[in-house]
């Protein structure tokens, strides 16, 4: 089996490995790097449970070869929390009950983070369009939309602002 050396920056850390060319990026992330927060739901680029950021853009990591990510910056759900502080999107999902079984949640949140980085104040239609490639089989999406709006509001506030009313802190 021929392998190809790759070097990828994952959540700010350089990770190097020799991989078989056919190794899917999602398997590289989960099994080589041990970052199991990125999930596999469908294998067919449908469900979005494997969504990660590849050079800043949310993509389905089940449909990218790890070798393609050589030299790339990758961000996974494990990279959202910074210095022990939850990302506002993580907070929003917790606060607004945006998850049930939690399996789609990492991918859903990665899509949400990318949306809010590009569009800090999306309306409901924009949120729903943005998450149209992420399937949730439990919630029916209403609370997911609420969670993203909560995060958007939070991210638009200045850093020093106290928590919004009712927003119990972690």
């Amino acid at each position, binding site marked *: 089996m021929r392998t190809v050396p790759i070097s990828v920056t994952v959540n700010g850390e350089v990770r190097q490995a020799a991989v078989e060319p056919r190794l899917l990026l999602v398997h590289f992330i989960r099994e080589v790097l041990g970052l*199991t927060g990125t999930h596999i739901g469908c*294998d067919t680029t449908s469900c979005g449970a494997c969504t990660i950021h590849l050079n800043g853009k949310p993509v389905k990591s089940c449909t990218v070869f790890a070798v393609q990510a050589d030299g790339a910056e990758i961000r996974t759900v494990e990279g959202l929390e910074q210095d022990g502080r939850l990302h506002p999107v993580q907070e929003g999902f*917790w*606060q607004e009950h945006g998850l049930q079984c939690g*399996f789609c949640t990492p991918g859903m949140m990665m899509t949400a983070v990318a949306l809010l980085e590009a569009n800090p104040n999306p309306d409901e239609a924009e949120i729903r369009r943005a998450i149209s490639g992420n399937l949730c089989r439990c919630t029916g999406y209403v609370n997911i939309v609420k969670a993203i709006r909560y995060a958007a509001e939070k991210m638009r506030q200045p850093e020093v602002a106290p928590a919004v009313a009712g927003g119990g802190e972690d």
Partner: protein
Amino acid sequence: MATTQSTQIGGLGYAVKRKEDPRFIRGKGTYVDDVKLPGMLYLDIVRSPLAHARITQIDASKALAMPGVVAVITGKDLEAAGLAWMPTLMGDRQMVLPTDRVVYYAQEVAAVVAEDRYTAADAVLAIDVEYEPLEPVVDPFRALQPDAPLVRPDREQKTNHIWHWEAGDKEATDRVFQEAEVVVAQDLYIPRIHVSSIETCGCVASFDRVSGKLTIWMTSQAPHAHRTVFSLVSGIPETKIRVISPDIGGGFGGKVPVYPGYVLATVASLQTGRPVKWIEDRSENLQADSFARDYHIHAEVAATRDGKMRALRVRTVADHGAFDAAANPSKFPAGLFSIGTGSYDLEAAHFSVDGVYTNKAPGGVAYRCSFRVTEAVHMIERMVDVLADELDMDPAEIRFKNFIQPEQFPYKSPTGWEYDSGNYPAALQKALDAIGYQELRREQAEKRARGELMGIGISTFTEIVGAGPSHTFDILGIKMFDSAEIRVHPTGSALVRIGVQTQGQGHETTFAQIVAEELGLPVENIVVEHGDTDTAPYGLGTYGSRSTPTAGAATAVAARKIREKARLLPRPTCWRSTRTIWSGATTPSASRARPSAPRR
């Protein structure tokens, strides 16, 4: 006193952020595919490309010659070990792997065990299976014809008819129909659907040759029931089997049945002495896992000309696929279908259902409501609408006219169910008022006058959930119950272990709230554990909306016992509870002011 501290306690009715979420939002859940054990092997499955065929040969030599391939398991191997068949939850048996024939598309034919999942996938393609195609039968009505292909020649009865089941009084029903002023009839097909939880099924089986103990991490909605099945199939006593349901990515009934893949991974671990992981992909999940519905219903209602329903007659053909492997914990082969008289007071009713084998994947699960209740509700509500249409009556009016009245409770339905209480007219009236029903009808009339179409649908239902009272419910003869264990630590925190298994329902939060409510301990000091048969008390699992009614009730009862016991003891000095538990004759919650509308 209790009242001022309620929000800190976080008992029932209070909005509490979920206790399981901190791990999920960080990607730190542990789903079965996240389990990685030293020396772990991967299992992949060869599946049938045909719905019905004789297997003439399986040649695994090419696969076995591939580097990294450890073993290939076929039906012949299992037969030698007495494991080619396993019992279903419905008293039928099901092939783990076929020895001579396949009976549905994507049926498991052989298993490959390899050092990694890529090699296993390659090896699956390297196994040559020769099939001699047989005529498949996929229509249950065709299956019932005498010349239809036989799906299950392994059975003594050489027919595709599985069982006939009836409920209600046939003669009384027929009598009402004979004299009825109005009879409406309708054929209803509720097609096969798939639950498609976002996480597929899978397991990691690990057999320890030294201790003789088998540990299986699996996507199970009912870990204890599955341990019992594993024990029955393998002959290993339950004390030597540990089933762990880790975090589960949705179940919806699809993780109640025992699938051959679980058994194969277990056999592979027994054979190799190494942990073996099997994770199905989405195609396998959709093609071969359990389905819901597939009921062909013929329903008739007898009524008076002014819209009083008098009797209901229902004949149904139930397509169970190749094995009767329904995940149905009731004593009835058609589950709770006979709840189909719904919310209405009828003189008589009769249900007959015939189960049929076809060359399709086996199943019958509780998706979006329990055990054929969905089919029953759809049937009766459709029939009420058909009758309303026939008599040109308003669909709300006809429902009011036929509801069981509040003073009739407790009410015994013509199919034998006892309804303890209810006020259906008040409930429907409230819903109609809330939606502005008359206003909507006016809007509809205006629109129709303009040539625009607008529909208004009404459905009311009475269902059975919470499987359930043990006179009606069992699994493999185990009467349905559930349990909870509570340990209170000296400093006032508590550990709760329950026999049910969350797949996203939030048990770690809900059950902690129940204990918080009963014991007055803050919800954050209560830890809920479940899903590990070595530590959790026996329970029958989570499906059909049963966890809170059964295990939740058990939890409350257990907590009350602790409370009673605690009354007899002096308060320990290290006790940190923010409120007094025992304050006299009333329960802690009795005088509590509630938030007017609990969230969610």
